[in-house]
């Protein structure tokens, strides 16, 4: 509702402003160009986020101080805390970093934004900044049209910086011209009332512009020409800091639970810091004076003093919050709960696929990998139960002969119901999400994605084949003909062994173990195929099984063979860390079975 009213109101106000004042038009154009510059800059940095940034992020966030430093440095370089926030939400959403690390990055990013104020106050307002903007724009646009991805990225960054500088130039010029017609400083309000009013204005401006950085630059531009008082500028800065959290909260609505919690942390942090700042405003202003004097800032240089205030205010907030981060995580985990929880018998949903991870190809891919593992967990459960085996026995070290004896249930498990509730939906979502994320991926990533889709299909096929196999498993497991019973128990035992090996593959980091188990599984699948090794022929020839039994066994062993093949292929794609060339292919398996090519 509010959003519906907000846009027309803004448009009407802007229209009115343009009609009454051409100078206001210049300021608004300056803000627009500045915001466009930020978008272009973000676009440029996203080009370089196809690996390097993610690797740095993952490696440099294992400790809190590292997370804070990363947030600071990344924001200082990219001049956009919103891009860092989006990246962080995306990484949390994909399960690559935890909430604590994410909060650390957000705290660091908050300090990082102060570099923008320093640049603007110390450089942007002192020189004719548009002189730098023009060549950047010209070079940038030429590079944007290049085919090479990295050149395109550099082009976007240059053009983005060019637009930022140009925006600052127009804002500054606009305010200077505006001063000749209207003196905004006459609207200044003193005291606590003024503080609250201007905090409100700061919040509103930031919500409208969706960028605290743009608000602070606008404040500095207005302050530099005396259109606002220093005290009111401080209040506006606090407001901008609160306003930015509202942007983050809106942005997190499409995110998963951790993204929402991170936005919650951002909100709590900025609001509490603002409240503390309001409570001790006089003391902060005194410290700002002391710092400014000690670093040689002139008494009337209010823009640089505002940069000192911005830094002090944000560093103070971070220092204040560091001891309480774990408590904040606990609080957020308790208060912001997932809307859909899994209950037995209920439908299971995707855990990692959400719009926030679509921001980057690497996070999309990471989320799909994690979701594939989630689907594997569900498939593992239904296949073991379909074979009438207990899952806990498979993952234990219990001898396989005993595993097949310890039945899961007296009755057949309804695989169809389980498939519809815990497999089908997730599988569909993975395929749908893969199609969505593919558009922004490199050919290498698309190849990986294709393999993951195959792995998911293999899993679903394995579940469907288990359903077919299950029909006769119960029937012949209790059969008086011990020959057929033995064969069906063998099928169960072989599949139980394979599931156990795949579980080890899924949980180990040792590439030699993975390689050996995958190879063994491939050899076993071929070696123990009763159609190929003559077991079935033998049973029929000796009249040990009836024709009906033989047909069932032939069909079911084919199902078991397909289940094994699909599970091995899936494990190879989903869990293997071994160099692809080292993995055994069908010719290698044949060589082993024929006892050739062995040292």
């Amino acid at each position, binding site marked *: 509702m509010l959003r519906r009213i907000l846009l027309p109101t803004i448009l009407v106000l802007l229209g009115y402003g343009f009609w009454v004042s051409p100078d206001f038009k210049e300021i608004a154009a300056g803000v627009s160009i500045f915001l466009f510059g930020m978008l272009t800059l973000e676009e440029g940095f996203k080009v370089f986020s196809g690996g390097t940034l993610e690797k740095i992020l993952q490696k440099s966030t294992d400790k809190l101080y590292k997370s804070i430093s990363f947030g600071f440095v990344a924001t200082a370089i990219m001049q956009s805390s919103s891009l860092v926030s989006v990246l962080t939400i995306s990484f949390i959403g994909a399960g690559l970093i935890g909430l604590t690390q994410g909060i650390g990055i957000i705290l660091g990013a908050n300090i990082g934004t102060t570099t923008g104020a320093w640049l603007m106050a110390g450089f942007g307002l002192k020189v004719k900044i548009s002189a730098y903007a023009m060549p950047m724009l010209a070079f940038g646009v030429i590079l944007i049209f290049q085919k090479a991805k990295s050149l395109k990225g550099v082009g976007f960054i240059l053009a983005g910086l060019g637009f930022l500088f140009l925006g600052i130039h127009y804002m500054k010029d606009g305010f200077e011209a505006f001063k000749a017609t209207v003196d905004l400083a006459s609207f200044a309000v003193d005291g606590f009332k003024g503080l609250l009013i201007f905090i409100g204005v700061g919040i509103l401006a930031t919500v409208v512009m969706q960028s605290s950085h743009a608000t602070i630059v606008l404040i500095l531009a207005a302050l530099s020409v005396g259109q606002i008082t220093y005290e009111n500028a401080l209040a506006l800065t606090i407001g901008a800091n609160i306003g930015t959290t509202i942007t983050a909260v809106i942005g997190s609505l499409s995110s998963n639970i951790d993204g929402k919690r991170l936005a919650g942390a951002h909100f709590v942090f900025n609001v509490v810091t603002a409240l503390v700042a309001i409570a001790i405003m006089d003391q902060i202003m005194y410290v700002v004076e002391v710092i400014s004097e000690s670093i040689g800032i002139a008494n009337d240089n209010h823009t640089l003093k505002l940069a000192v205030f911005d830094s002090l205010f944000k560093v103070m907030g971070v220092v204040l919050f560091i001891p309480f981060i774990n408590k904040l995580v606990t609080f957020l985990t308790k208060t912001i709960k997932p809307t859909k929880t899994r209950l037995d018998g209920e439908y299971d949903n995707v855990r990692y696929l959400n719009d926030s991870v679509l921001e980057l190809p690497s996070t999309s891919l990471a989320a799909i990998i994690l979701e594939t593992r989630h689907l594997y967990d569900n498939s593992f459960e239904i296949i073991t139960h379909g074979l009438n085996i207990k899952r806990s026995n498979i993952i234990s070290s219990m001898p396989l002969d005993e595993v097949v004896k310890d039945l899961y249930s007296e009755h057949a498990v309804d695989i169809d119901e389980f498939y519809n509730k815990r497999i089908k939906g997730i599988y569909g979502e993975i395929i749908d999400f893969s199609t969505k994320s593919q558009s922004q991926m490199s050919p290498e990533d698309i190849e990986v994605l294709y393999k993951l889709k195959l792995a998911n299909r293999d899993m679903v096929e394995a579940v469907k084949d288990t359903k077919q196999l299950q029909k006769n498993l119960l029937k012949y497991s209790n059969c008086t003909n011990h020959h057929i019973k033995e064969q069906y128990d063998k099928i169960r035992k072989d599949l139980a062994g394979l599931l156990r090996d795949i579980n080890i593959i899924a949980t180990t980091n*040792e*590439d*030699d173990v993975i*390689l*050996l188990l995958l*190879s*063994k599984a491939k*050899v076993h699948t071929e070696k123990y195929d009763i159609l190929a090794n003559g077991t079935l022929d033998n049973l029929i020839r000796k009249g040990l099984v009836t024709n009906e039994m033989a047909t069932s066994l032939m069909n079911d062993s084919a199902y078991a063979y397909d289940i094994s093949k699909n599970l091995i292929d899936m494990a190879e794609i989903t869990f293997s860390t*071994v*160099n692809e*060339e*080292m993995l*055994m292919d069908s010719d*290698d398996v044949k*060589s*082993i079975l024929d*006892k050739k*090519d*062995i*040292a």
Partner: protein
Amino acid sequence: MSFKKFLKSVITSLELGDYKVEGKKKAIKDLLKKLNRRKQNLKKSLEKASEKKQQKELKEELEILSFEIKKGKKILYKLYAKNKKKDK
């Protein structure tokens, strides 16, 4: 010197060329080390094994391991040959 040549010489001097191949070589070498260690242990276990079933299983594992080691060596040899060709 053309830009391409300059870039090539920088890459060569900083040993940045074929970092993918170098990474692959290292990964296979490490894997071969582990497989060889495993093979030695397996041989010892096979000597100690008394049960026929266990002996059969260990023998099969040893066969697979030997095959994998041979395969790894072949890949490594090819990678070194590729590098030599480039150096020439």
